[in-house]
């Protein structure tokens, strides 16, 4: 893993803590099946492109970061893991014509929960 380096948090949250505080570990690992939580708002606030409860796979762990202050489900000052999550296009859009195509997006941990029906 990268060496830890603490950078001062700027006013707009540019700084990133690269080391987890003691005791906090990422909840998911690469390959885990996860589900987007049923939340009042999604990553895309203008066009709702993600069906609720769609199951995806953790493709990568990216970095840990401070939780944005305007998040409704926030605990102040908490650091959380961010992930790249991969979805099959066919799981998002049943009529999507190509079986192998996928889409990935980046998500903070709190938007994800373990998939209810793991394969």
């Amino acid at each position, binding site marked *: 893993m990268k060496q830890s380096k603490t950078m001062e948090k*700027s*006013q*707009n949250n540019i700084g990133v803590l690269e080391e987890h505080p003691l005791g906090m570990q990422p909840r998911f690992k690469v390959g885990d099946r996860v589900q987007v939580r049923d939340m009042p*708002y*999604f990553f895309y*606030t*203008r066009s*709702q492109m993600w069906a609720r409860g769609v199951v995806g796979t953790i493709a990568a762990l990216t970095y840990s970061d401070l939780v944005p202050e305007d998040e409704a489900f926030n605990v102040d000052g908490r650091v959380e893991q961010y992930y790249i999550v991969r979805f099959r296009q066919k799981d998002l859009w049943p009529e999507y014509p190509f079986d192998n195509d996928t889409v990935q997006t980046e998500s903070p941990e709190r938007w994800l929960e373990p998939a209810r029906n793991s394969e």
Partner: protein
Amino acid sequence: MSQKSEVDPRRVGLLEAMRGQGKEWEVLAPCYGVTNPNPPWKTSLAAMCDCLDVSGALPTLDRRRAEDELAEAVYGDVPAPESQLLTLVHTMLNRGLVSERELASRMRTVRSRLEAV
């Protein structure tokens, strides 16, 4: 899912006056044989957007949402980068970051200054 609007789409007189004069870079540059695809002020505009985000005066996400709305509702026929400039100023006016009156006045001053060179 509906999202509250970021911006007032009513047209701004000062900005409307600039449109449709054939002075957008993509129209003007070829007339002068200039092949640079960007006007010289484009990097300054980009820097302004970064600065407004860093200072918190106009966060990028808000600015881009407003830009998307305005591009669709008002400035759809304006090419880049003029569209980005107009939508930025329109958004700043909406938010009271600058006023139309002082902007008009400053534009007169700036133009005199540039033309005096």
